[in-house]
């Protein structure tokens, strides 16, 4: 019988299929691990409801555990509380930056709030430093980048385009 700590350890080596430099535990989407007799139950929360990586992630988790000799794996989906980029581990943020993706800036989640909206709705200047050269002279190109979880930005200093991992 395996311990829960051992399973967590194994899962920390399962890469996110879209951003392979970070693991599923770095991303904070593994919400719970329990061992019930011979069965390992892993509770996973989706990042975005339409994220096409969700089924691949489940497959990768199951495969990783089977490769370690766990015969009986059960995956459960948990929606509540909804996933937030606040759960990204600090070291994962550094890995993202090194990979060329600007990590989320905490506390800047879109609220879609109803009062004093225009400024918020039109995305009042959020400074996202360039992950390549560190310059703060960057501009948003689009609210949605290569995946729903990212926005497209461009650096005005080094001129490189880059993805920004949006706060959610």
């Amino acid at each position: 019988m395996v311990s829960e700590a051992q399973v967590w350890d194994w899962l920390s080596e399962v890469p996110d299929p879209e951003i392979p430099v970070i693991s599923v535990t770095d991303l904070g989407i593994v919400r719970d691990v329990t061992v019930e007799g011979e069965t390992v139950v892993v509770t996973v929360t989706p990042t975005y409801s339409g994220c096409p990586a969700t089924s691949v992630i489940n497959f990768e988790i199951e495969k990783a555990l089977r490769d370690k000799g766990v015969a009986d794996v059960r995956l459960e989906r948990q929606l509540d509380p909804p996933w937030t980029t606040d759960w990204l581990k600090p070291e994962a943020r550094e890995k993202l930056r090194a990979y060329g993706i600007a990590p989320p800036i905490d506390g800047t989640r879109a609220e879609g709030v109803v009062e004093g909206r225009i400024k918020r709705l039109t995305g009042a200047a959020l400074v996202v430093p360039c992950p390549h050269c560190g310059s703060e002279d960057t501009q948003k190109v689009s609210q949605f980048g290569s995946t729903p979880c990212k926005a497209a930005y461009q650096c005005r200093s080094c001129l490189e385009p880059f993805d920004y991992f949006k706060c959610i």
Partner: protein
Amino acid sequence: MEAVVDLDAALFEGLCRLGDSTLVLGHRVSEWCGHAPVLEEDIALANMALDLIGQTQLWLGLAGEVEGKGRDADALAFRRDVWEFRNLLLVERPNGDFGQTLMRQFLFDAWHQPMLKALEGSNDARIAEIAAKAGREVAYHLERSADLVIRLGDGTEESHKRMQTALDKLWPYTGEMLTSDETDRALAEAGIMAAPDSIRPTWESLVGEVLDEATLTAPEGAYLHKGGKQGTHSEHLGHMLATMQWLQRAYPDATW
């Protein structure tokens, strides 16, 4: 006993109204894939379509569960005919030009976001958790569509004209999402869902504010179309479903 059965049927209806609206809009928006005016907008549209279709899986998945006849989200999306769809008429309107697509998105987002906020307070935990999840995504949709409506409305003469034309065309389809029928009222009274007319003040003030900023004018006294929520659709939905459902109809249960 009678009342309980009715409420379950109303809940199935209510969930189809939400899930069919996100499905039909998601499909419409996905029609832009590879055709948008610039690459960034193409990608943004595809991403929003993905969010909406992901939300559809949650809403229609729950609808199937509530119905209890073994239909999952796919069965509901691909095996029902046009009169069984409960989406708002607004979302089945054809894409038109980019301006019309954006205006439709904004008018919907301005309803969708406060509706999800209200549904977070549902006494049915399954509804509250889907609403909380979807709400975070939709907040970004609303930011984007409001931003673009303002930029294009208050843009060039040509972009202003196109946005005003889009608004005039789509406005008559907005009343439906802000009006409650018997099903809506039964669900609201039971604390399960929010009544569409309770969203109206928020929608009106948000839309008014954005249109002002965009230098656009909502038409006055327009006739309001309704019926989508009860299954009476325009001719456009059938054509869309013919494309969307083709594979499952030609090859039921196809896998690859």
